[in-house]
């Protein structure tokens, strides 16, 4: 097949509407008779709802309805948690749409107002009187497991929502016999995903047809349809979910939230469309957070640098309620990848999922894998330091060799393909480590602290085999789907089960289809986000869309082409076996110029005047692709910094990265994903943190306080690639959406700790604000480390 577009960095096809202001995001949706909702949220982290009086709000100008938790609790099903990892005794106390008895975090919904305008709805919130009886609250996932800690849910002792164990080999024996052990207590701070578009929902219920249409900011409209139908007790076939343009998600638009179901309920009652849009301050309270681990981790090995074991105890905050995928993040997506790119024969991890008086925690870019990479890479650095080995040498010594794939690690995962040393070699060819070491040594003589962090990683993504995701407790499938529909004139619409929201699949998937049919890309349109037209799919997250949904697109296109070939053979009065696809047409082998182009066949298939016997009219196909394994992208990232030891300020000098996600459909888009991913990881390492005070008040509640990286703070990224195809999908591709985020926080922290090695600093918890760096230097000077 003459491939012309696969591998080509063409401009994105979604961009013209985005750069001209013509795109339609959820808050841009306007319907006749539109009304507006606002939600009253708890200012307390934990309190009894003693009294709530909405009478004044009900009488306020423009107000159409006011709901309290008590009003609706018997009409709806509590917000479900959809990921129940096995063998961990997960407890998921009911998560009401609006609190009716107890509020459990700052931001917990208490009442919903619907009014004629946004301002009227907001004004009416101020007229609702609530008496709260405050209760003890707690925010630290480790402290909340201790005896006497405040109880978030009465029926969850010590707030332990689950205890999950991952084990392979015999870690206790490995540690008992090891000559070297390194230990750390690591806090992986809570982060706010901060997609630039806040969440929003517009519900429109048609009383005539009994159908609810819900526009919402979703990464996975089919999951929203499924769970909203459950919550609202509506038949699923009467719920249509449309995720229009979505302004970033980073995991925060995976969960199904109470808010989206609430506007659906209000629209069903009022018979009018209802819109709700959170403002940013509301977003920081009411939209999920990520990470939030307190970890005790240790690594053991030989004096010669052979790793023999890894042990962890992790306290992972769940927030006040288990969010849609919450329990799966610190378990399946974290513990199973503990081996990283290394041979670690003995692994034991214990993860406690802990309820705290905080916003629920769910997937944030990387989701579990950045945490795993971070703890592993911090430990291996310290291990190398303690035995006097170079960080490059120790990694080489422990890499899974490239000829051992597929390779099964101690946690039970089987990695599809890899060449970890290849990526490391390439990174070192772009970064002169020897020269840097010389500069570093020279600098140290003059009190100039330079440091380098070198991080190798592998991640698990592209979920996945549905049977496997079912066995690890995910409540849905993980195949994905596409319908390829060919119109009489030979143009094509492709309806996909994924829902891109910035990743560019309207372009990359069109490249796949245009190549398959030998037609101009302008004749292909990719359609996503509307459950009315798209086949059942599971959404865009976990770097799965290209590997899984893209493969479904490829398979559906191939099915169309197989049928087209039969029709072409018939039209050419040739044997199908004698036809080949050459120069973008079906031709009789050895007879150039005799061919039928795709558009000619498409016309005949659709008008069906002259079809081969037994072949149905029409030209379309659906494919559901369920991969045989996950995919495992990998790479090596190198970061250098200069630290001002007097002030704790740091400057990123260079960021060099080599990633391997298999072949690139569109290199321009791959590059963009790396840029954005790396910057999110650097933000995590440098400055991002969600802060609660001891009473559970959210201190970082606005964009003034939550430090999203700015252009002036971020480095130019020097990115490069190796290409190791995956054998588990027909495109050979691996995911790239999260790969930048997964190693980058570790790379920066490693660089800073390397810079401050002469001062005795071993580890500093991120984010590396000047105050923290300065304090670490002072502590090290004082003898502690």
């Amino acid at each position, binding site marked *: 097949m003459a491939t012309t577009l696969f591998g080509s960095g063409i401009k994105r096809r979604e961009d013209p509407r985005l750069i001209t*202001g013509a795109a339609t*995001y959820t808050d841009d949706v306007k319907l006749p008779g539109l009304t507006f909702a606002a939600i009253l949220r708890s200012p307390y982290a934990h309190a009894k709802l003693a009294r709530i009086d909405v009478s004044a709000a009900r009488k306020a100008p423009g107000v159409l309805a006011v709901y309290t938790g008590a009003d609706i609790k018997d009409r709806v099903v509590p917000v479900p948690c959809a990921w129940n990892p096995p063998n961990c005794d997960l407890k998921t106390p009911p998560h009401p749409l609006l609190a009716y008895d107890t509020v459990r975090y700052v931001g917990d919904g208490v009442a919903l107002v619907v009014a004629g305008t946004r301002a009227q709805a907001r004004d009416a919130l101020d007229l609702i009187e609530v008496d709260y009886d405050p209760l003890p609250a707690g925010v630290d996932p480790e402290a909340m497991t201790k005896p006497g800690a405040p109880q978030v849910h009465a029926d969850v002792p010590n707030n332990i929502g689950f205890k999950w164990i991952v084990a392979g080999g015999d870690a206790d024996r490995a540690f008992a016999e090891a000559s070297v052990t390194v230990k750390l207590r690591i806090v992986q701070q809570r982060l706010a995903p901060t997609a630039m578009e806040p969440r929003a929902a517009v519900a429109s219920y048609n009383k005539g047809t009994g159908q609810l249409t819900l526009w919402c900011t979703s990464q996975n409209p089919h999951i929203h349809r499924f769970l909203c139908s459950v919550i609202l007790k509506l038949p699923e076939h009467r719920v249509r979910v449309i995720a229009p343009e979505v302004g970033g998600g980073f995991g925060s638009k995976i969960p199904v939230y109470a808010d989206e179901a609430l506007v659906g309920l209000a629209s069903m009652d009022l018979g009018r469309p209802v819109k709700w849009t959170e403002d*940013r301050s509301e977003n920081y309270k009411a939209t999920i957070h990520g990470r939030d681990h307190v970890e005790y981790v240790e690594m053991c090995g030989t004096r010669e640098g052979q790793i023999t074991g890894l042990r962890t105890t992790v306290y992972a905050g769940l927030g006040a309620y288990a969010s849609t995928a919450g329990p799966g993040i610190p378990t399946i997506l974290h513990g199973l990848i503990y081996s990283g790119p290394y041979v670690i024969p003995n692994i034991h991890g214990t993860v406690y999922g802990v309820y705290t008086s905080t916003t629920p925690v769910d997937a944030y870019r990387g989701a579990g894998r950045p945490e795993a990479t971070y703890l592993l890479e911090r430990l291996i650095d310290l291990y190398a330091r303690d035995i006097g080995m170079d960080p490059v040498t120790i990694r080489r010594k422990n890499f899974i060799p490239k000829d051992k794939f597929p390779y099964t690690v101690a946690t039970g995962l089987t990695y599809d393909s890899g060449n970890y040393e290849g990526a490391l070699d390439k990174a070192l060819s772009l970064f002169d480590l020897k020269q840097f070491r010389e500069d570093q040594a020279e600098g140290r003589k003059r009190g100039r602290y330079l440091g380098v962090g070198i991080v190798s990683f592998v991640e698990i993504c592209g979920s996945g085999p549905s049977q496997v995701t079912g066995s690890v407790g995910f409540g849905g499938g993980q195949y994905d789907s596409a319908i390829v529909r060919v119109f009489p004139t030979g143009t094509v619409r492709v309806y996909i089960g994924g829902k891109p929201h*910035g990743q560019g699949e309207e372009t990359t998937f069109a490249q796949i289809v245009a190549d398959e049919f030998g037609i101009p890309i302008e004749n292909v349109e990719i359609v996503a986000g509307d459950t009315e037209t798209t086949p059942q799919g599971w959404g865009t997250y976990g770097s799965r869309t290209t590997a899984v949904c893209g493969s479904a697109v490829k398979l559906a296109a191939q099915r169309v082409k197989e049928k087209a070939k039969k029709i072409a053979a018939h039209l050419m009065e040739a044997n199908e076996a004698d036809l080949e696809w050459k120069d973008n047409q079906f031709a009789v082998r050895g007879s150039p110029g005799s061919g039928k182009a795709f558009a000619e066949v498409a016309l005949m298939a659709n008008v069906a005047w002259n079809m081969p016997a037994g072949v149905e009219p029409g030209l379309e196909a659906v494919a559901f692709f369920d991969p045989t394994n996950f995919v495992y992208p990998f790479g090596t990232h190198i970061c250098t910094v200069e630290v001002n030891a007097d002030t704790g300020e740091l400057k990123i000098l260079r960021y060099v990265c080599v990633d391997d996600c298999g072949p690139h459909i569109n290199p321009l*888009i791959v590059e963009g994903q790396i840029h*954005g991913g790396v910057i*999110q990881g650097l933000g995590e390492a440098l400055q991002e943190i969600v802060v609660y005070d001891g009473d559970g008040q959210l201190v970082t509640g606005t964009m003034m306080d939550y430090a999203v990286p700015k252009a002036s703070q971020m480095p130019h990224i020097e990115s490069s690639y190796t290409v190791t195809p995956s054998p588990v999908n027909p495109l050979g591709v691996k995911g790239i959406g999260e790969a930048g985020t997964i190693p980058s926080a570790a790379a920066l922290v490693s660089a800073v700790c390397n810079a401050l090695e002469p001062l005795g600093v071993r580890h500093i918890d991120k984010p590396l604000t000047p105050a923290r760096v300065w304090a670490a230097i002072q502590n090290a000077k004082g003898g502690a480390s």
Partner: protein
Amino acid sequence: MTHPVTLTVNGVAYPLEVEARALLVHVLRDTLNLTGTHVGCDTSQCGACTVLIEGHAVKSCTVLAVQADGLPITTIEGLAPADQLHPLQTAFWEKHGLQCGFCTPGIIMMATELLSTKPDPSEAEIRHALEGNLCRCTGYQNVVAAIQAAGATLRGRRQQDRPAEAAESRSAVEHAAPAGV
């Protein structure tokens, strides 16, 4: 109580009655249906709502509609004549300067003013100018590249238009007239 104002947006004068507290961004989006201007925060940090008022980049979430009475306003929808792209729009497309696109209109409007006052900004100057515009997707690298590319295009055009003045024009301060005004 409402107040009569005339908002001149993208060259069209709209006589309107607005509440005193109505923010310009809400009037643009909700009343005039110009939804290309976005709201990404409530504290004037993100810059998604940036428009041009008299050629100056302004966060329309921080301006009352009554304050904009009578002033020429340009939004992303009016940056280029119909069916054409402004060089900044072209450059963002070509350099992959956007992903989800939510912050993009605001950044383009900010960059319009930047390039009108500083035709050939350095990378550091561009990054500094982006202080009030947050992007969570791109890591800013291709945003910077797009603004540099657009700057080059605009300088080239200016040189073509006025070859004799080309030498001086590099440092000339000049406001790009909002399209259609």
